[in-house]
């Protein structure tokens, strides 16, 4: 079971800030998770259609989308950060 967090317009498109998900075994990387989430409904399709617009963190560390999910328990998906 993975805790997935969404921020900014990703959160708005999905319609929730957080959910618990058990992706299929074929999903082993962040990019594969994004691809799978895109098939989970209309809002998901909108949020995850273009992985180039997304960034990710595994257990609160920034990662590129090609990394394996490994034993991560918390995955966050969001647009590029704009603080400061």
């Amino acid at each position, binding site marked *: 079971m993975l805790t997935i967090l969404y921020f900014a317009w990703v959160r708005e498109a999905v319609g929730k800030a957080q959910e618990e998900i058990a992706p299929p075994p074929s999903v082993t990387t962040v990019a594969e998770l994004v691809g799978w989430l895109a098939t989970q409904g209309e809002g998901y399709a909108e949020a995850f259609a273009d992985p180039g617009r997304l960034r990710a963190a595994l257990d609160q560390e920034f990662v590129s989308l090609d990394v394996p999910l490994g034993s991560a328990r918390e995955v*966050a998906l969001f647009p590029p*950060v704009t603080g*400061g």
Partner: protein
Amino acid sequence: MIRVSVQEAPLDIAAEHRALAQSGVGGIASFTGLVRGDDGVTTLELEQYPGMTGRMLTRLAEQAAERWSLAAATIVHRVGPMAVGDGIVFVGTASAHRADALEACAYLIDRLKTDAPFWKREWQGGESRWVEARACDDSAAERWDTK
């Protein structure tokens, strides 16, 4: 001494400055980011990844303290709604040497823009849009990689 705060409350720059001065060193450098009123923006809203923001800001301050001779470093970042002219972020560094204070301050604000999970949304009256990341922020952060 490192102080990091992610807060809804307005920045109290005088208080942050006084606290940095208590380190008793030769100088303080600081940067304050303000809400810009460009393009009819009326309100800015800041969203964060709670938990991760504080850790990332603390890590940046620790990295700055390893790289430069600092007596103290402070990062305060606001979240929630803000009005035009309000402070969004305060970065302050105290050191016996001005070059260390100035460079560490520039490092912290440059890296904060790419390394801390905050997202800005601009309101123009009743309409809002998420602010897009800018390539110049990436290059400003990267210049510290090669030094």
